[in-house]
């Protein structure tokens, strides 16, 4: 691997480290493992950089980060949020149809963070990719490797669930 290749790799990939870290941080839910995931993903990306001919380096890197994180999740958190995720049996939660006139205050960051962390990884990642990373549906479909149509329905379920969690937390709050 030549020096040119290394420079090309660094120019294409390093600008997206924030995106990579943000996704890894949300999937692993801690800083230390997130850093390891990003490093491992970058090494993989480097190894397969010859095969990258696209223009969207961010989506490409995020795909690798996501795969690295899922391998890690399967190995480290067996049985937690990863087992038999079935799109069919996860119907839209009732809360989706129950409008609530939700109100969030500016000091609710921690609550939002905890609620999002509580979601299964498959739901958490679509919200992170859409609302934090601001990827298009097309990019999300590429990163999580599902058909375009699935992106919208999964986002709908994810947001409905998140709303459900937020509503019940808000009720508990004094």
């Amino acid at each position: 691997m030549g020096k040119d290749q290394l420079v090309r790799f660094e120019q294409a990939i390093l600008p997206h480290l924030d995106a990579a870290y943000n996704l890894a941080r949300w999937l692993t839910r801690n800083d230390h493992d997130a850093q390891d995931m990003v490093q491992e993903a970058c090494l993989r990306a480097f190894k397969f950089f010859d095969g990258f001919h696209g223009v969207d380096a961010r989506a490409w890197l995020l795909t690798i980060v996501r795969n690295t994180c899922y391998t890690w999740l399967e190995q480290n958190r067996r049985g937690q949020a990863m087992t038999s995720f079935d799109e069919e049996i996860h119907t839209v939660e009732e809360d989706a149809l129950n409008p609530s006139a939700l109100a969030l205050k500016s000091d609710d960051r921690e609550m939002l963070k905890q609620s999002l962390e509580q979601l299964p990884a498959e739901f958490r990642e679509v919200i992170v990719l859409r609302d934090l990373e601001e990827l298009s549906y097309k990019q999300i479909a590429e990163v999580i490797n599902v058909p375009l149509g699935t992106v919208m329905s999964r986002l709908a379920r994810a947001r409905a669930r998140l709303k459900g969690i937020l509503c019940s937390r808000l009720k508990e709050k004094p």
Partner: protein
Amino acid sequence: MDCTNAQTLLDGYLDGELDPVRNLEIEEHLHGCTRCSLSYSDRQVIRRGLKTESLYFKAPADLQKRIQRSVRQAAKAEAPAGWLSWPWLRFAAPLAAAALVVLMLVPIFGGPSSDELLTQDVVASHIRSLMVNHLADVRSTDEHTVKPWFNGKLDFSPPVSDLAKQGFPLVGGRLDYLNNRPVAALVYQRDKHVINVFVWPADNSGQTGGPIKTLQGYHVIRWASSGMNFWVVSDLEQNQLAKFTDLLKASATTSPS
């Protein structure tokens, strides 16, 4: 448009991912339906919260340096001929091209050695396993824990033996990917030195063994026995590593596994 339709399209509308016709339809519906428009404003509230409450985790300052370091190290391991600087290569390239033509005419030599590439891969895998804190997927000094762990993860069962008594304790096992296939990586230790043993089924294409190789300060020893390829890599001193491989060979032939 009815409420069920509107609900399934609400997220696409929120995200600006609908076509203009659908956009109009849903806007009309939202005007006339309190339930759906409340549901829509809930989504807006949550999204606004996610965006403004700074839930975006930026990469720590030193992560980029750490990654640059490890990638450069991996690049070096993959291209070990660092002394072969670029200007030098300009003269060498035509020679190499000529040599390649000759090699292609004489198939016996088989082109640029896949063996060398594999050696580089093995060393790179070894370095990676040390760098990213991913030495073992299963941590155990017990061969009867490590061996069954590979069941269902690989299409073969690698021979595993603990050599603790001989001074090379087993640390654990890991899945790795080499030579275009998943392989078993067994991890041993001698003092502070880590030894990776990569095992996968031998095909008939050769690579039955070879002299000890040294790359980037790592020694590589490989052989094939009982239908398996073994590649041992470590920074352990050469003679000690040779002793380790002798022990491993002996235990592989004596143990029933």
